[in-house]
């Protein structure tokens, strides 16, 4: 019996492989500090999530092959214009394999917020980006307050962000 338990534990430990850690439970990120990151935008500008501390941040994971993402992004750009003066910032993270299609699409959609390329490591830090679109709302203190997975009613997101903007 002891040998059986031992080999079972050994087998369990061998499952999975090297690379980014397996996705954690997504709900564990709520009300926790948003993992910081520093990236370079597709326009060549360095930026970091912590650089927007004091603002409400909408962090959006997307990809060029994601049709709902393409519907959302112009709306996010409109919100950037509408709420920017109140301390609101949008950050887009493309989960495409290459930057060129992401750059082309963001230009076509006239995105007015920083877009950077993501990878599996950043995705894993955000609980696993295993479906798109995926959007987080982060309050002025850098705490994740909402998570929206998949095609979401944009009025729901906007309503939530307006409440966060009202908090100082």
């Amino acid at each position: 019996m002891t040998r059986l338990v031992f080999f079972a534990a050994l087998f369990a430990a061998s499952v999975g492989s090297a690379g980014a850690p397996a996705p954690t439970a997504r709900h564990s990120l709520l009300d926790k500090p948003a993992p910081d990151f520093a990236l370079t935008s597709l326009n060549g500008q360095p930026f970091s999530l912590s650089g927007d501390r004091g603002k409400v941040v909408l962090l959006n994971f997307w990809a060029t092959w994601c049709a709902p993402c393409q519907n959302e992004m112009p709306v996010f750009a409109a919100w950037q214009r509408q709420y920017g003066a109140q301390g609101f910032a949008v950050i887009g993270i493309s989960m495409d394999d290459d930057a060129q299609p992401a750059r082309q699409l963001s230009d076509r959609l006239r995105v007015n917020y920083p877009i950077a390329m993501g990878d599996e490591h950043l995705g894993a830090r955000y609980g696993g980006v295993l479906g798109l679109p995926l959007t987080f709302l982060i309050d002025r203190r850098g705490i994740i307050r909402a998570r929206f997975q998949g095609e979401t009613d944009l009025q729901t997101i906007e309503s939530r962000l307006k409440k966060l903007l009202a908090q100082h």
Partner: protein
Amino acid sequence: MSVIRSAAFVAAAVVLWFVALPALNAQWAAPSPSSASSIPASQLVHVDELNRILSAHGAERPLILQVGSRVMFAQAHIPGSEYAGPASQDGGAQQLRARAAHLPRKTFIVLYCGCCPWNRCPNVGPAYSLLSGMGFTRVKVLYLADNFGADWVSLGFPVATGS
């Protein structure tokens, strides 16, 4: 009065002919080959069934190909599966074609993506069409209603990471 009635009848006929009928035809038209809806229901496999196949001792193990996002594959994928996408793009389709080129056409293959809700997935439809067109006769597609995270990972099914 009869003239008015006749005119109304003609107007209704015009609306029916040029608006209603085409709309109805569109609703019943065959889905685009790029749509996940184009995949016959008989060729879909559900997560429970695939897990039974993968868990069964001595059962024929399919070649499992993820035909969506490489970044998502690296975060989490079905153990033993290979990345061969994205099928909606030329480079990904070529990758899939190259992977399958020398396989016996009776190879048991399971395709999956899980990037997006099923009816929004741009990859599984083209992947299935491509392999069917190459003559593969035992291709199944894993049905993931929302995405790989919600329909596989969150349900506790086995996961591997890395490229």
